[in-house]
């Protein structure tokens, strides 16, 4: 037995030594989920699935790798594009010489047209709503794609970029596989799907004919490791090269101490905010809402969450989005003022408000900190803890007068304002998304900005909307949580990482291991 074991060790040692000398060509990523979900870009809705699909697919345009803002939009499958004056007709010149994975042939304007039609179709896409304004999609010839819109759309290029419904699928493959497309997704990106092992990993192979050049890496193994501590240990033991971090400061402090490791807190920040139902008692009294806003100390929250991984929220739209009012008139921390407002509203001896809250750890610690802060102003926050899926179901029935929600969206103010504050999005309505506040006071500005073609006017409309929402205390922005990742220092991503819209660092054809 002893001999067998030492033999095994010797074999393992040779293997480890061998791989240290040759240049490493396989990247192993550890993701914090139990298994793959839907690997169809038009259906995927979770961070782990979106991150993986990003390596497989392209958009017509893309946000420069490492950036998380539409300011950095650059050509992807389309080399160039033009639009008419009012932004309702878009013509894209599709790049020649792009090959689909697994020998599905060249990618042409017909594939692009098919893909957008597929993404607009409720039956085949979860992002059909993003393409509601699309009237017609035509492949004029092999390299020309024309999209006609019913009305102008703010930040339209964002919807045809390499995220969600903008991911371009290859027509022949998607038609052939139908519902099974998610079992073997076929795109045009630097890596192609190779293998799936349930609850273990997805393996991708380099797409040698990638139009930007053959990738430096030969293989990516995307491993599903739900336990934070196991992922950390496997990273420490060298079994993983890159990991999704546990989203808190202690993880950063601990992981930064490991030798040869890069830890990164990247954009976008997921903004934590309280959404107050302005039609429910006692929150229908603006003084009560103002008191709550005054009682929350954003600075203290950032100290609590960790200065390197979080920052104060600036408005009802997260910072850095196109149209964010970086100087929105948020209520300053002032306990005395909060108490005075409560007394004025007739709650001299304090007031009790309720929230239904998820048991998700990061969010739970935040609401408990908020609860402690509110206590000082005589506001008793009752927290009813429920499991995450229950939480999502109940807040969408309007059962929670105060909703704590944490989210990042496509970084254009319109998306956040529409989903959280347009009255069409009020929960319970057929058009509902995530307006838990029942506020409708900024509807006119939000809707006017959506179709405004003059950038300066559009910005003003968004600014007015944010001011109204802040002053009326529909939402109380608290802080923004950055995305935490770590990787081995000898991994060269091939670009400077500031952020990534799908919350995972892109792996491109240039990503490689340094010798």
């Amino acid at each position: 037995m002893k001999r067998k074991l030492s033999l095994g060790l010797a074999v393992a040692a040779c293997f480890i030594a061998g791989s240290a000398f040759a240049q490493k060509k396989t990247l192993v990523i550890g993701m914090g989920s139990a298994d793959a979900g839907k690997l169809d870009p038009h259906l995927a809705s979770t961070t782990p699935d979106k991150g993986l699909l990003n390596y497989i697919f392209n958009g017509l345009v893309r946000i420069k790798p490492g950036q998380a803002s539409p300011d950095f939009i650059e050509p992807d499958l389309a080399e160039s594009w033009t639009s008419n004056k009012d932004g309702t007709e878009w013509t894209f010149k599709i790049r020649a010489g792009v090959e689909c994975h697994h020998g599905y042939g060249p990618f042409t304007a017909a594939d692009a047209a098919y893909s957008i039609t597929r993404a607009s179709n409720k039956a085949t896409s979860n992002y059909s709503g993003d393409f509601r304004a699309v009237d017609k999609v035509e492949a004029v010839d092999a390299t020309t794609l024309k999209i006609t819109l019913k009305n102008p759309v703010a930040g339209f290029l964002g919807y045809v970029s390499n995220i969600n419904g903008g991911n371009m699928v290859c027509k022949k493959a998607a038609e052939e596989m139908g519902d099974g497309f998610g079992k073997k997704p076929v795109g045009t990106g630097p890596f192609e799907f190779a293998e799936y092992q349930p609850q273990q990993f997805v393996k991708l192979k380099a797409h040698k004919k990638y139009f930007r050049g053959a990738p430096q890496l030969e293989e990516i193994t995307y491993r599903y490791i739900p336990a934070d501590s196991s992922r950390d240990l496997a990273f420490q033991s060298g079994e993983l090269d890159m990991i999704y971090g546990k989203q808190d400061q202690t993880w950063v402090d601990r992981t930064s101490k490991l030798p040869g490791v890069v830890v990164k807190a990247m954009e976008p920040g997921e903004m934590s905010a309280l959404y107050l139902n302005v039609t429910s008692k006692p929150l229908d009294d603006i003084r009560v809402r103002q008191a709550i806003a005054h009682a929350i100390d954003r600075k203290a929250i950032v100290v609590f969450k960790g200065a390197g991984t979080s920052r104060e929220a600036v408005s009802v739209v997260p910072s850095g989005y196109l149209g964010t009012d970086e100087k929105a008139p948020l209520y300053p921390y002032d306990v005395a003022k909060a108490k005075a407002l409560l007394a004025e509203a007739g709650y001299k001896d304090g007031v009790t408000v309720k929230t239904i809250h998820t048991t998700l750890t990061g969010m739970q610690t935040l609401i408990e900190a908020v609860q402690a802060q509110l206590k000082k102003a005589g506001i008793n926050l009752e927290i009813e803890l429920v499991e995450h899926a229950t939480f999502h179901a109940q807040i969408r029935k309007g059962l929670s007068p105060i909703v704590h929600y944490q989210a990042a969206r496509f970084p254009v103010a319109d998306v956040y304002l529409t989903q959280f504050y347009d009255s069409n999005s009020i929960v319970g309505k057929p058009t509902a998304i995530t307006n838990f506040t029942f506020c409708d006071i900024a509807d006119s500005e939000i809707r006017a900005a959506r179709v405004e073609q003059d950038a300066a006017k559009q910005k003003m409309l968004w600014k007015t909307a944010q001011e109204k929402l802040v002053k009326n205390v529909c939402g109380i922005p608290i802080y923004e949580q950055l995305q935490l990742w770590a990787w081995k220092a000898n991994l060269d991503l091939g670009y400077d990482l500031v952020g990534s819209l799908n919350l995972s660092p892109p792996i491109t054809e240039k990503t490689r291991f340094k010798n």
Partner: protein
Amino acid sequence: MTAFLIRRLGFAVVTLFAVLTLVFVLVRIVPGDPAQVILGDQASQEAIMALREKLGLNRPIHAQYLTFISGALVGDWGTSMVTGRPVIQEVLNVLPWTIELTLISLVIGIVIGVPLGIAAAVKRNRFTDYAARIASLLGLSFPPFVSALLLLLGFAILLPWFPVISARSGSATAWFQSITLPAINLGLITAAYITRVTRSAMLEVLQEDYVRTARAKGVPINAVIIRHALRNALIPVITIVGLYLGILIGNSVLTEIVFSRPGLGKLIVGALNQRDYTMLQGMMVIYTLVVVVVNLATDIAYGVADPRVKLK
């Protein structure tokens, strides 16, 4: 024997049916909407309603129930609402991993637990007994995920003998490396359990008249313990092991998660979190089947251990 089997199978069918109905109702009582989980948090109410329609969740509850039961009868458990993959395939993908882990840890548990239990009983209230009792108490009260992390820290990081991701296959070495730590983790807990049961069963038997008689007529002590005492003490041990096997499959979930191994437990927890009704239903059918089969096997094992038990 045949009559016994038929009767037991009849019971099994009734149990299965009751469990199916219960599961069908329970998953629907829990708040939470699979359509919402699938579409993510930016989905509009319209999209959610459309998906509910597509998934058949808007149909009357009795129609859904009939579809489910008739499907289950012919072995069709549908496809996962979340991933779209067939339930049976998802289960079969990970079942071997769970069976392998459960059986090996059970063997470890028996190999350690039975001798330790005997030793503790024979040396009652002496050092061996105290040591065994403390060890087994520790094993039972230690949360499996803590012991799992300690094993990983010790034997994958400090002494890098085993991988942290214990899910390798391909060669015998790889297999051995990836099963060892998880099996030890689960095996030690099982051993703790079996030690206690064996000890108390043996204590009882050792006080019986026939044991004293055997000793008095000069049978060597080891022969008395093995042939006279142990044989009779085994019945409760088998019962417990059988019951425990069912629990073990459920308990393996934490071990699976920490050691990053695929498995049934992980599948159930995932399906529960995502409100994957069809998946949960399919899993419960299989889980119930396993428990029923294990119980049947336990009953048959009685007959082997004790000739007086007739399987009628």
